[in-house]
């Protein structure tokens, strides 16, 4: 299995939506298991168990192990070898790291398009800054002129 991402290789053969393409870069925690080992799934989720993460499992996209980021409708590929028996756990940890790091494309969209004030990093990081306080309707496209009627 290739350890280089489509983003790094410049391959454009993927027919899916890839988190790296949306963000314009790859992330260290996609390549290094040690960067996600300390993610506490129970602390990262509401309630007495892992809550919404229960439905998050390791999937495959373009032949590469991947986890689905529902906040950007894209797959986040995992390039390091995943220990047997820990597939779903690792997928969940990579996803939570991605969200807590603020790298999900859905978070970038909040900055630009949120219409009411809300925490930038949602429920994943306490005390994150507020975005969406100064939203204004977009104006007409550049160069557009009113038809005058």
């Amino acid at each position, binding site marked *: 299995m290739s350890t280089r991402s489509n983003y790094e290789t410049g391959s454009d053969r993927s027919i899916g939506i890839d988190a790296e393409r949306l963000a314009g870069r790859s992330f260290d925690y996609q390549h290094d298991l040690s960067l996600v080992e300390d993610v506490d799934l129970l602390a990262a989720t*509401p*309630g007495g168990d892992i809550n*919404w993460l229960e*439905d998050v499992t390791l*999937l495959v996209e373009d032949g590469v192990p991947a986890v*689905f980021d529902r906040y950007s409708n894209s797959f986040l590929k995992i390039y390091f070898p995943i220990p047997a028996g820990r597939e779903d756990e690792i997928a969940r940890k990579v996803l939570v790291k991605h969200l807590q790091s603020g790298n999900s494309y859905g978070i970038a969209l909040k900055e630009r398009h949120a219409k*009411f004030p809300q925490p930038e990093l949602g429920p994943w990081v306490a005390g994150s800054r*507020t975005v969406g306080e100064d939203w204004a309707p977009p104006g007409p496209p550049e160069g557009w002129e009113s038809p005058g009627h």
Partner: protein
Amino acid sequence: MDSVVGERGLTYDARGLAEPDAVAPKVAEIDGDRASFDATGLSTRQINLELRRLLYEGGVEHVTVRNPGAKHSLGVGILRRCSIHFEGSLGYFGLGIIDGPEVTVTGRVGWSVCENMMSGVVVVEHNAGSLTGAALRGGDLVIRGDVGARTGIDQKGGTILVGGNAGLLTGFMMQRGRQIICGDTGPGLGDSMYDGAIYVGGKVANLGIDCVEEELSEADLEVLDRKLGMYGFDQPSSGFRKFVCGKVLYNYDSLEPAERKLIL
């Protein structure tokens, strides 16, 4: 003289359409990271703005809302970890599109509670209307009483736990996640479901199209034990039966990639 009851007794637009310039009323009593306020006389929009003021700007972690008065669309769009306690009942579309809160409602809720909820825990102490947990994406939605028709319609994840009975077409077009119904279910259980699991502790009136019974696995028993234990429910004396998609009408594998993502 006509008595002023029902909608004629309202002094505001209950649908929340007529207050584009509403501001948070700033009526809450704040004590450290806890706050409470009385919603009597406040409109839907004012209550929601007060909640957001406290939770987003006020450094408050726990909010109690007294007398919500079954107003519609309360507690919607709260996108952070916190706890909210409603002392009373909510109308329709309560607690929609939330992500993270842990909520308790001491009364009842109207239709479509927790529509499109992303994550969190919502516990309703009494009954809920139809379309409970419509399009639920994640989290736990617990109704201690009965629920109406089409519970978890288009459910895409998460857990709906019902202590009482459920109406017709429970799990209609369900796509992921799980439902645990401790009581009986009405006709058409799991009609046109694509995926996910429905566990029923009582009687099933009849099954919907392409819904079949399946043996409970060890993993199923673990989920049932954990979820029932977390919320203080007893196991039904006859145990649970599990219902899933029969996959006779199953066309998942031929979906385009973009379509497949819609249900992940």
